[in-house]
């Protein structure tokens, strides 16, 4: 019996190897693996990035964010700016001019009515629209003729590019979704499963939580340029990140695998097979050491609470010589190269995007001798011979907390070593991520409570405009018992110049002018020792097959943002 079975198996295998096995990359079809399957093709009802990305192949916004965070017009002719009259002088309204050569995949023309409808669709009070926050502060969206749309805000908005920009808020067809307003939103399964779009592909078949197949949109606006370069797209979901990476890098069954949150060692080994490569996207995510300017001694009733009069100050971390020396002792290059590999770069800046906002004013190369000299000159020396310095009778001893994670603990160990070389003693502590980032006001171990001298975690911005992100560190937004420790200003930073620039920012339009202000804010944060930037981290890592060309990773928008440019390389 057993031998027969084995024989049978051998026969099956032999047969299968005769009938041409081996996976050939299809010239006309591209296969994308998402280990989270798409459950709906309408980003306004999405339950995660996977749904937005699956919709992005069909639906398009007025403009996308490019990989560098700049705006790329899609359904609009140009990006509105004060210079072209697209943004009003008082900054309270923005006018988009739409392309007049775009038709929906069913052949009907795309007009301003569709744009206005999309706004009404998401802001309907009974709808439960997932993206409604993107439309906050809008008074009205009006059609000005067939191809112009005016959005009016309730206050000056120097950066008005949240609504209807990027793949989270694409334009829906009014003719298709017109009946789906409010409570009817969820009932329109046919529309939600097969939206009509302006994008390069049309939905052919959608199996919720499994697979989406798309076919070429013959009415795509760049069809005369041959775009898209594939006839079909298969967007397959399910499984796990590791097997998705394997299917691209080792077996070659798929062309693209999304969000590979797996150990770099495993990923490197798979990439070594030579079938494909890993692409990394950078947005604004920065691993930072935060410095606590308040007194955190355990018996202090106002532990870690910022007082405007400076009465609850930290005994030595408000001294800039000390914090500067601590910063000089760190070699961010070693941390980035040894611990982060391709998923992070060493940086001296808190703001690392957009390019125009990246400061060159700060030197953060390691200089342990310089740090020692700096402290010696300031008279901060070791008086009691225990190997660590004292300042005003306080031992320079810091507690350094972060979340439990192998990379972070290795970073801690390196920094502890460097700080000990300049005479600063470090006590390391790590807290389970669920507690540390959990935000429970009753727990003493959250990053907001900051019951330690320094701490380390990653923070970032989903928008390439940094106003909201930098506004987090405004004075008065520190976490305190009064706001239940929910303030956004973790480093309890308070600087009049910083706040003044933030005010200026809220009245300044124009990318270049705003970038210059981001840069100044960055310099203040770093030079005033609110924090020590360590590593500029990637926001996503995906794998694609060597035979797939045109992939351009994007940390600010959907990874599918330029799928019309993907093509098959001759192998």
């Amino acid at each position, binding site marked *: 019996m057993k031998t027969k079975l084995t024989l049978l198996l051998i026969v099956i295998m032999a047969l299968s190897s005769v009938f041409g096995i081996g996976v050939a990359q299809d010239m006309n079809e591209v296969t994308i693996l998402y280990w989270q399957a798409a*459950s709906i093709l309408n980003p306004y009802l999405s339950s995660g990035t996977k749904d937005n990305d699956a919709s992005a192949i069909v639906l398009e916004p007025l403009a996308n964010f490019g990989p560098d965070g700049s705006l790329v017009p899609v359904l609009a002719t140009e990006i509105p700016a004060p210079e072209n009259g697209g943004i009003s002088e008082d900054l309270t309204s923005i006018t988009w001019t739409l392309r007049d050569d775009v038709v929906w995949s069913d052949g009907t023309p795309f007009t301003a009515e569709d744009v206005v409808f999309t706004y009404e669709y998401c802001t309907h009070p009974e709808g439960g629209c997932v993206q409604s926050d993107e439309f906050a502060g809008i008074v009205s969206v009006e059609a000005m003729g067939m191809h112009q749309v005016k959005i009016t805000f309730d206050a000056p908005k120097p950066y008005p590019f949240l609504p209807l920009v990027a793949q989270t808020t694409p334009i829906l067809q009014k003719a298709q979704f017109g009946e789906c307003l409010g409570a009817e939103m969820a009932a329109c399964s046919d529309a939600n499963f097969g939206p009509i779009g302006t994008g390069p592909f049309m939905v052919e078949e959608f199996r919720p939580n499994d697979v989406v197949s798309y076919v070429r949109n013959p009415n795509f606006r760049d069809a005369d340029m041959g775009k898209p370069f594939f006839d079909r797209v298969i967007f397959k979901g399910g499984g796990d990140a590791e097997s998705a990476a394997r299917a691209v890098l080792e077996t070659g069954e798929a062309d693209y695998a999304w969000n590979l949150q797996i150990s770099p060692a495993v990923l490197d080994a798979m990439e070594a097979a030579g079938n494909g490569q890993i692409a990394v996207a950078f947005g604004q995510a920065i691993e930072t050491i935060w410095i606590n300017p308040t007194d955190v001694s355990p018996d202090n009733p106002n532990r870690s609470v910022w007082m405007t009069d400076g009465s609850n100050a930290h005994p030595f971390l408000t001294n800039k010589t000390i914090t500067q020396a601590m910063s000089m002792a760190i070699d961010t290059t070693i941390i980035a190269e040894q611990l982060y590999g391709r998923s992070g770069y060493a940086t001296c800046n808190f703001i690392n995007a957009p390019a125009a906002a990246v400061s060159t004013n700060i030197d953060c190369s390691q200089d342990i001798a310089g740090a020692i000299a700096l402290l010696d000159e300031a008279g901060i020396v070791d008086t009691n011979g225990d190997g660590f310095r004292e300042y005003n009778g306080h031992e320079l001893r810091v507690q350094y907390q972060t979340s439990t994670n192998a990379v972070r603990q290795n970073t801690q160990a390196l920094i502890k070593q460097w700080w000990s070389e300049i005479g600063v003693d470090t006590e390391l502590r790590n807290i389970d991520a669920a507690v540390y980032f959990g935000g429970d006001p009753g727990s003493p171990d959250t990053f907001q409570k900051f019951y330690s001298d320094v701490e380390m975690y990653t923070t970032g911005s989903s928008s390439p405009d940094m106003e909201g992100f930098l506004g987090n560190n405004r004075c008065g937004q520190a976490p305190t018992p009064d706001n239940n420790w929910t303030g956004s200003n973790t480093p309890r930073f308070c600087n009049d110049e910083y706040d003044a620039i933030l005010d200026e920012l809220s009245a300044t339009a124009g990318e270049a002018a705003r970038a210059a202000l981001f840069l100044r804010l960055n310099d203040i944060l770093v030079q005033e020792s609110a924090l020590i930037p360590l590593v500029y981290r990637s926001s996503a890592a995906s794998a694609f097959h060597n035979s797939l060309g045109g992939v351009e990773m994007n940390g600010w928008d959907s990874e599918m943002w330029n799928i019309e440019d993907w093509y098959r390389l001759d192998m």
Partner: protein
Amino acid sequence: MGQYIVRRLLTAIPTILVISFIIFAVVDLSPSDPTGNLPLTIPPEVRQKIREALGADDPFVVKYVKWLQQFFISEPLNLIETSFGITFPGSEDRVRVISWATRGPVIDIIAERLPQTIWVVGSSYILGILIAVPVGVFSAYRQYSVFDQVGTFLMMVGFSVPTFFTGLMFIIIFSVNLKWFPSVYDTTLVVTDIETLQLQLRQMFMPVTVLTLYTTAQMSRYTRASTLENLQQDYIRTARSKGLTERVVVTTHAVRNSLIPVVTLIALGIPGIFAGALITEQIFRVNGIGQYLIIAIQGGDLPTVQTVTFIFAVLVVLFNIVADVLYGILDPRVTYT
């Protein structure tokens, strides 16, 4: 017998209702949030709005009664309408069981996924039985022989090595190194000719083998034990002393009687086919009912979890009745009044 079946079916109704209530309570009380997987940038007020639109914050009783009405009234009516092409009054306003994640009818998705689950899990079940019964019988007949020892060892391996391990091993051997079989199951493949049938068989090979190994291990142990017991019975000695050939003694007398408990076991296992194979489906991206249930649980999709587990519960109850009836047919000593 007929009366017995009717009585059993009638008593099953309250059982099923109690089961539906317990499942609903357990799922509803578990701390899951349908907005939990949304990006962190979406503020709490928006999440609250979404929950309201879904009806996720309705009181327990309201949600339960709604589900009962949708599942026991709307869905059957809809089924009748679509299968006979007729329309009942009020068809437009009827609300079916709607998933919170896909916002589409749950039953449609189950129907869409049933084929791949039955292809993969069903065929491995049949294959497993076809292998397990002869192996079990022969092992018992030649107890402690080399065949029995090797068989026992292999079955213990099949039984104790988890499918996520064998699955991964198969992928590494057959997909990565040999490139014989695909590791990603194509659910859109429709079998129309020899070529597509070949593709279908090839993509089924790994998941089916992994599952068959497990089913075979389980079933053959059962068959072996049952056959061993019967081979020592007096009637076997009688059969032999009558001068019957060994072949007749084993196949007609021993095996027939030994298979009675095995048939029961097989019947009880059939609802398991519907539930799919949670882990194997996930590994090979078969995306059948099992994977659907996992996604729904992770996403806090209460209507889906409730509906899938409930259908499973109904099948368990029904196949219990089937098993009991089969027992009566196969074993003349059992009578139902």
